[in-house]
């Protein structure tokens, strides 16, 4: 075969860079929560399912009611009109039946996949490590939805000028005071109204300590696992669950400690490190093109378009 193997190898080098990226992808630095990070801790053992937080979230964010079948506001899942939902898990059976509520909203990941996806940084970790959405940077590609391991961002499918909707820890709505607090009471709407303090708001480190303290004090009451400490590199919203009701039953997916962006972003940054590989390949290819054209000029051939 009369193939210029050297030329072929050079371009294959780019493919090889892809392959090399495969190994080094883990080298991506592990992210930690910013020093001013705040978050929420939801304790399923305390929640009575009153849904005061669901109503408060609607008010605070001007979201329409969702009436699926009855007169009442009864959303069945998170949607472009529901940033916060309380769901009921019923283990069924007699005697051993376990019933638990669970609250769902954005997890405010420490290494958020939605932000890694977003081309112009519409979704970004901003103040207090809260992930918020900027309308003027969003083109509606929905890559954030593909990326989010918790299926949190919701798209306004029925609107010609759709927004991406999710919990922004009430930041967008409430604005902040000078001290960097969320609003007048320094609370998001849902934690403010919770009558049982089943969901609380505070500095991330304190919430972590509090969650661990509760498990340590009441090992019979809780599963020995704080959801969000490890999952996908950590989330700023943490969960506790009753003994015997694993998180997977509450609709919280079983996820490893690896942040979702680690693989693709690590790969990308390895291949395109300093943009050296593409420029080198471009130089080589330009040389090859020049050589081919010079040769065919000499032969009186016209090569190319």
């Amino acid at each position, binding site marked *: *075969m009369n*193939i*210029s193997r050297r*030329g072929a190898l*050079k*371009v294959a080098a780019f*493919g090889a860079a892809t*392959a090399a*990226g*495969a190994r080094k992808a883990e080298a991506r630095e592990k992210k930690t929560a910013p020093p001013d990070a705040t978050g929420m801790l939801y304790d399923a053992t305390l929640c009575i399912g009153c849904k005061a937080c669901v109503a408060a979230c609607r008010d605070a964010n001007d979201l329409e009611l969702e009436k699926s079948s009855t007169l009442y506001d009864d959303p069945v899942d*998170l*949607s472009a009109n529901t940033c916060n939902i309380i769901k009921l898990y019923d283990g069924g059976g007699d005697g051993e039946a376990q019933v638990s509520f669970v609250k769902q909203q954005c997890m405010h990941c420490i290494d958020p996949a939605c*932000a*890694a*996806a*977003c*081309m*112009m940084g519409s979704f970004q970790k901003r103040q207090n490590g809260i992930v918020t959405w900027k309308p*003027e*940077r969003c*083109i*509606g*590609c*929905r*890559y954030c939805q*593909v*990326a989010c391991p918790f*299926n949190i*961002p919701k*798209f306004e*499918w*029925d609107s*010609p*000028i*759709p927004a991406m909707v999710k919990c922004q820890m009430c930041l967008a709505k409430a604005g902040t005071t000078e001290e960097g607090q969320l609003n007048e009471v320094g609370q998001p709407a849902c934690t403010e109204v919770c009558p049982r303090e089943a969901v609380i708001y505070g500095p991330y480190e304190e919430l972590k300590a509090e969650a661990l303290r509760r498990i340590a004090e009441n090992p019979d009451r809780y599963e020995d696992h704080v959801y969000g400490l490890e999952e996908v590199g950590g989330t700023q919203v943490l969960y506790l669950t009753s003994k015997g009701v694993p998180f997977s039953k509450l609709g919280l*997916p079983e*996820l490893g400690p690896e942040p*979702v*962006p680690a*693989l*693709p972003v690590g*790969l*990308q*940054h390895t*291949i*395109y490190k300093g943009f050296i590989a*593409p420029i080198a*390949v471009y130089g080589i*290819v*330009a040389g*090859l*093109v020049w050589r*081919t*054209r010079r040769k*065919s000029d000499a032969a009186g*051939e*016209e*090569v*190319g*378009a």
Partner: protein
Amino acid sequence: MKNGHGVPRPVGGPIMTPVMKLCLALAGITTLLLIYRFLVGLGPVTNMTDGHPWGLWIAFDVVTGTALACGGYAVALLIYVFNKGKYHPLIRSAILTSALGYTLGAIGVIIDLGRPWWTWKLPIFFWTWNLDSVQLEVALCIMLYTAVLWIEMAPVFMERWEQEDDKPRLQEFSRKWTPILMKAMPWLIALGIVLPTMHQSSLGSMILLAGPKLHPLWLTPWLPFFFLVSCIAMGYGMVVLETMWSRTVYSRYRETSVLSALSRAMVVVLLTWVGVRLFDVIASGKSAYLFNLDRFSILFWLEVLLFLAPAIILMLKPTRTDRDRGRLFMASGMMVTAGMLHRFTAYWFAYNPGDHWNLYFPSMFEIFVTVGLIAAEVAAFMYIIKKFPILTGRPSAALPT
């Protein structure tokens, strides 16, 4: 060479053939549908949901469509990198097909975007660029490459405009710009090789961000490699199919020996794909997934089979000359199908947001829009090859029988 079938000439003949009319009608209806889509939003007309936010338009029009349009890339690779200068009779039609295919992909993206009115910011507002976003690289690369393809085509249009004595402005413009473009051409051609290498592989990296929602058999750091290697096979396959098509439809006798001889290179490409695919699954300890007999394992084996079969066909009896075109046609069809399946699986079938989400299947509206876009592409192709010097080869009627 100059007076042989190596010189491209316009096909000529009537423009408004029945096929053309059909294509224009489909494209026209699609335009009306799209007006409706922008008035009501995506929800009422598509089957996409928050669980399956990407549907046919991304999986086919963009991810698969641009790979099918890799003919220009594959031929340019063969000519310049593999130093096969004699394949140039094919390059014009290959680049035209690529330019049209990428334009279709770009239009597909705009249709699919929820908020396309901010897209203009993307190439300009560089200070907002999120360098972590694989999609950013894909988007910018595709924009740039589409432009490069049309600029590569420009001399072909100008060649014709130069002869239009009744349009002096166009004539003058062409006379002035042709030499400048020809000087810049090597640099453009090199871009035309580097850009697809970048974004076709990145299309593989892009879906890796679905992380746990992507089946482990496709969630592999080798996915960009598989996308890159398979787009070369797809591009080559499409050039073969297109050459044979113009031969049948326009009675253009075009030499396929050049392509036949190249089939051996494709054997290497295909076997590399299969080899690395199997090796990766085993080495990463995922072999248990291969024998689950669920839809994922079946899709995996189907992929491997579709990549392997054309390699075996071409290996057992290498195609050398024009006579072998039947076998080449079959193998090319398989290569194209294989690449399509691989992309559909990664972006659609192997994507599972959770079991409470229904499987996605496109709506009639989505399918019709895609068909309409393809019809528009075919119409544009037919028009351009009739008016401009694209196709090489003589009408086969003139062949000695």
